[in-house]
């Protein structure tokens, strides 16, 4: 009995110390909204205003500039995208915004591999960021238990604690000072990098990465649910693929299967699929030298041009014009014009 008592006492001490140390670091991080992706309070303050939503991952976050959309389309847009944003988080955030805003348009940003993300390290990093975007502990607990695999709890804890420690000064003293991201309404500015391939590099990677529909089943189901929700609310929905670099496209094979998948999904869910990689002006508009920060993310220079092109296309669609002439009809045709093919 004495042994049991001693063990229970030591466990009690342990739990108290562990919880206290963890709370001292994690609570300020979660509550003070000092990191760029923590915008719960800001979005709450925009309740009733938002009518145009971008729902995506890092490609969408870098590519869409809400302020330009607002000026040109006369809407009030917000870019909800964050790096590696899981599908269940997209659905959760969409539902939250629908509950407090009269949303007219939703852009669902998709990429070649966005449905392949499963539980594990990357998903845990993304889920941890989502947790910090939720503004109450019961919501966080619900998301943790419902959407995060048990073995990833440790990863989520690790990422929360380390981010908390590294940014402790920011957490304590710069409460709510993520204004840069708030000003950009969710858009993330990325610096340009010249990612042009040499002839040897291009030859070495050409068609080495086959596009495959090996989707993580849950992701695909949730994507369909998102599109259903949009339909139920009478929202105009565009499924959009933001341009990636020529180098990135050059690496893939079988991308026409991606195009077919997108078109089939859009037809099934009564919306439009717009793959801006196939824009006929892409080789003039976007160059690997200027328009990207890495192989599959736009730089600010690229994002400015892309947002304009997106607006042009959408305006034409809204005016009832046929935009199919603005796009290549297949990846095979598009890749044939690639600078790497010459």
């Amino acid at each position, binding site marked *: 009995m*004495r*042994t*049991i008592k*001693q*063990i229970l*006492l*030591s466990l009690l*001490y*342990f739990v108290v*110390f*562990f919880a206290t*140390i*963890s709370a001292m670091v994690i609570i300020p991080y979660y509550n003070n909204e000092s990191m760029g992706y923590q915008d719960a309070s800001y979005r709450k303050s925009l309740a009733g205003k938002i009518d145009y939503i971008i729902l995506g991952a890092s490609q969408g976050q870098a590519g869409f500039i809400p302020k330009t959309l607002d000026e040109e389309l006369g809407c009030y847009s917000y870019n909800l995208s964050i790096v590696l944003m899981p599908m269940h988080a997209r659905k959760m955030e969409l539902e939250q915004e629908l509950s407090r805003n009269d949303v007219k348009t939703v852009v669902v940003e998709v990429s070649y591999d966005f449905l392949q993300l499963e539980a594990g*390290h990357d998903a845990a990093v993304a889920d941890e960021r989502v947790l910090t975007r939720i503004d109450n502990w019961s919501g966080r607990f619900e998301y943790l238990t419902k959407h995060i695999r*048990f*073995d990833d*709890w*440790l*990863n989520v*804890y*690790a*990422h929360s*604690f*380390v981010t908390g*420690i*590294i940014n402790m000064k920011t957490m304590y003293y710069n409460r709510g000072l993520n204004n840069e991201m708030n000003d950009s309404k969710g858009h993330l500015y990325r610096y340009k990098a010249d990612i042009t391939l040499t002839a040897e590099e291009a030859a070495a990677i050409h068609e080495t990465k086959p596009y495959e529909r090996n989707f993580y089943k849950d992701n695909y189901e949730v994507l369909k649910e998102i599109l259903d929700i949009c339909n139920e609310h009478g929202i105009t929905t565009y499924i959009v693929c933001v341009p990636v670099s020529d180098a990135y496209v050059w690496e893939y094979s079988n991308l026409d299967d991606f195009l077919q998948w997108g078109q089939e999904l859009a037809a099934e869910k009564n919306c439009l699929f717009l793959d801006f990689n196939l824009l006929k002006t892409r080789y003039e508009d976007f160059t690997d030298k200027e328009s990207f920060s890495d192989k599959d993310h736009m730089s600010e220079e690229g994002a400015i041009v892309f947002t304009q092109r997106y607006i042009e296309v959408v305006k034409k669609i809204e005016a009832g014009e046929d935009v199919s002439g603005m796009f290549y009809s297949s990846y095979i045709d598009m890749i044939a014009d690639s600078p790497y093919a010459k």
Partner: protein
Amino acid sequence: MAITSLSFILFIIAVFIAYFAVPKRFQWIVLLVTSTVFYLSYGIKSALYIFVTASTIYGATRWMQSITDNQKKYLKENKATLSKEEKSAYKDKNKKARKRIMVLTLLLNVGILCVFKYFHFALEQVNAVIGLFGGNQISDVYKFIVPLGISFYTFQSVGYLVDVYFEYYSAEKNYFKVLLFVTFFPQMTQGPISDFEKLSKELFTEYTLDYKNYSWGLQRMVWGFAKKMLIADTLAPMVKDVFTNYSQYTGITTLIGAFLYSIQIYADFSGYMDIMCGICEVMGIKLTENFDRPYFSKSIAEYWRRWHISLGDWFKKYIYYTIGMSNWSRKLATKTKDKFGKHLGNTVPATVALIVVWTATGLWHGATWAYIAWGLVNGLFIIFSLWMEPVYAGAKSKLKINDNNWAWQAFQILRTFILVTFIKVLPEVGTLSDGIGLWRQVFTNHVIPHTKMELMPYVNWKHNVDILAFLLAMFFTFLQFCASVIQNKQPVRAYFNKLPQVVRVFIIAVLVVLIASFGVQATWDAGGFMYANY
């Protein structure tokens, strides 16, 4: 079920609760069930082989035991009627039968091990020979997934088989007890390679929950996780970077990378042992120790007596002594003694045995020429010091070097650590020529780095998380060094347990927070345990 996962921690808690909740006579059954669950969590296919090994070893040992028992009974019953020659003939017949069973079982189990570990390597060599003569290469279409811990459990099982053959002890009657001996989860994947007689005493004794065991066991477990996750896994990507890019780095940068590798592999392997020994300690079970502060060794031979002790003991008992005690070895000893004197008479047969042992040790670690070379280099150092023993003794006496002098001891320790580091990296860089290339880089590139970025480019100096993680790794390496120094006089935990309980638990809680944060992040990039690949 990864050892560093949350699932494993929950699994261990469940094992502890079940172990102490059941009546004591069933405690070993809890271990058997949980070991089976643990192994099955890695896949059923893999589990099949461990059951084949356990079953064949059980069958063979029981068969040999029945022959021995029947022989004893028969000889006792017919003591008066049998002549000396008849008794001898009867014994010989039985001995041959037992030998046949032992050899067949040995071939089967070592055969499985060889197919999984050495088939591709053997085929490569065959193809290389065919290539020399311009013949058609044999295509390697077989893709084997090496069963978890096969090198460890095969050696342990074979040891038991041979022990029963030599009648060191009787074969176990209960199949499930043999199954537990082979599959016991704390030691199945990376050892220690235990002796049946010793381990069975530990496994089948009944234990009561004891606060000291609980407390010391958990402390050791947490320290093991800290070594693995805060030291080894943090250093892993840096070491990988050095091994990949050594040709672009300066000699000093490469040398530091090699030393980091020595720290990494020790923290990784001994960390695993601490975790597993800690788990067992909570349950009252004492596992064979695999490390005895190996980096404080004064020679390569001593280092191998203190590093992966159970493997060294296995090779000594089953290979080295078997060769040393063989008739031809004795004849060789007699001949060399007659011709060259006592010293060489003893060292020549030992040299032959050592070459075999170290080639086998190299092969056990990996089916590559680099590992074979690594084994032979270790062996050659040991053989060289064996041959030179009288010369050393004479030189020391002339120079009046006292073995107990601390400076002499420090020199010996440092020299051994440097040598061990150079030998260790040989098979880890890639091919054998890569390993030699790294050595060459250390000795030929004399450029002096001027900044910390140049000195250690494998540390991400621009990223605060990485800098902090590296500093933590170095801090814990320093702590480990201090602990090893103290350990020489008294177990560190004896000092630690003099602290009040609340202080002890606070220190453990801080350690757990660091492991669960920086350690878990480091483990993302580093992957599993290094010795699980052997």
